[in-house]
């Protein structure tokens, strides 16, 4: 292949995805903190639901939601905060002088993160299903794949947008991510169907793509779920597809704006450099 703009950027995506993919194999400690630890909070919810006599589907909802927390954590800590960390280590300026689109760097992070996190989430889900004897009744696998992909594109698109906003905001990325963790667990219905928060709250929370993604996946995985659904699956898929486009376009604009502002104020590099 000749060195066209597209080829160069695809190679950049591959290059930036590599550390995350290889990291999964190189640091197996993730099996403990990425798979087993989420099971503790899942277990707590499972026992609460059993104690209060909730429908059996709720156990499945919690396991699926608990597995999906890995994606939100990955988006917050390894996408949104990433450019901030990269600046701290001096990588950001090397990324900025490279002759590639900044979007391909973030896309590389997203692809690598997605691979890494899907492995973790699938492991948690498998463990949860095994531990709590959950029955998954998958009725429409194609729709599930579409919903999952649309959720991930929208979610990581949001992470790409956050990446430049974190850098622009200039505060400690650590605090920003902490601030966005628990409230989103709650508002997006990670541990219960979001419908029970009321229509308007659920609608507001739908700006976080995982809200609708999780709601749709629950409907596709569990027979009794439609009664607990917020919106029909097709509607949720359409909204997720729209959010994907919106977030990626916004990410591109915010990255361009961040780069322009960073170049005029000197924020792309550390002061000592």
């Amino acid at each position, binding site marked *: 292949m000749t060195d066209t703009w597209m080829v160069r950027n695809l190679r950049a995506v591959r290059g930036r995805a590599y550390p995350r993919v290889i990291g999964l194999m190189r640091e197996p400690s993730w099996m403990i903190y990425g798979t087993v630890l989420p099971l503790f909070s899942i277990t707590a919810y499972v026992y609460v639901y059993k104690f209060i006599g909730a429908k059996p589907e709720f156990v499945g909802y919690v396991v699926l939601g608990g597995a999906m927390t890995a994606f939100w954590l990955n988006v917050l800590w390894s996408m949104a905060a990433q450019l901030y960390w990269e600046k701290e280590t*001096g990588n950001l300026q090397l990324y900025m002088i490279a002759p590639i689109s900044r979007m391909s760097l973030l896309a590389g992070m997203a692809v690598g993160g997605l691979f890494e996190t899907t492995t973790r989430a699938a492991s948690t889900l498998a463990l949860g299903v095994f531990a709590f004897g959950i029955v998954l009744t998958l009725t429409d696998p194609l729709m599930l794949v579409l919903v999952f992909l649309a959720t991930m594109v929208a979610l990581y698109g949001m992470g790409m947008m956050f990446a430049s906003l974190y850098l622009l905001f200039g505060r400690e990325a650590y605090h920003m991510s902490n601030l966005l963790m628990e409230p989103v667990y709650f508002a997006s219905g990670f541990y219960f169907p979001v419908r029970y928060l009321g229509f308007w709250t659920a609608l507001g929370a739908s700006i976080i793509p995982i809200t609708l993604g999780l709601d749709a996946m629950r409907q596709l995985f569990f027979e009794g779920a439609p009664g607990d659904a917020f919106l029909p699956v097709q509607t949720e898929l359409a909204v997720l597809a729209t959010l994907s486009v919106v977030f990626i376009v916004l990410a591109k604009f915010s990255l361009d704006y961040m780069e322009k502002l960073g170049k005029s104020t000197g924020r792309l590099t550390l002061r000592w450099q």
Partner: protein
Amino acid sequence: MKPAVETKSLTRVFEPKRKSGGKTVTALGGVDLRIEQGELFGLMGPNGAGKTTLLKILSTLLLPTSGKAYVAGFDVEKDYHAVRKRINMVSGGEISGYGLLTVKENLWMFSQFYGIKSQVAKDRIDSMLGTFGLLDKKNEKVRALSTGQRQKMNIIRGFVTDPDIIFLDEPTLGLDVNASRVIREYIVDWVEKQPEKTVLLTTHYMAEADELCDRIAVIDGGMILACDTPGNLKRTVRMDTTMSLDVTLMRDTTRFGSFKGVGKFTSHDDSEKGVTHLRFVLEDESPVSDIVSEVLRSGSRILSLQKSEPTLEDVFIKMVGKGLD
């Protein structure tokens, strides 16, 4: 032939943050510079002189406040995509990359940001690791490398993309003699073998600048004070006499500055050895007897005295009014 780098009245002003009460800083105050293709060009100046700001502008990381900068004939402000294809940059003390990757993987990753074919990149990396004596470290994780090994890896990162122009910001900072020598030899070799390639180097080490550079610009306070070959720069102080004196520790050396005929002087104490090193740039040799008398009057003993050939340090002291340390 278009110059590799050209700046015209290049100015960069940093405004303080609102409510910070800080002062406006003029990092570059109208820099005019022309670096030809094939040159190994040095930029010498004390901390805060504007060297790194200039490199950041040329490498498209920072916008000028006014003036123009061209790299490989392209405007760094408007044609930054074209500039980025042709450059790379390495800084001293850099900790770029990811510690969990091996040396080879790390270099490969950065090569991918320049669209280099994977196999081509791997071959180049192997060859360069051999040149830098790091072949046995290629499968070591980056976090396990020593400072010198890491900086050699950084240098490879910069050169592996085969840039037309490379910016090296203090590339041998804090390295031992051997690691510095390997890096210096590589830089010289790279330019000699490929006459169309250009290196812009900032350094604190005068001897390094003298050894490596075809031309040197002395920068201070955001202004270029002089720009010429090391030989010509040294000739500008040839009219003056440079004298070095080692004496037993002297408490007060301030009086030397007021002696008639003393242009500049520096002193520094080596408490461990009990020696004060004095260095004078003299307009002529007439103050020598006064200097010797003052040393003896203060109760110190002269350990050695020598008249020196001018060095870049002398040039620097003459122009900037102080040494680099």
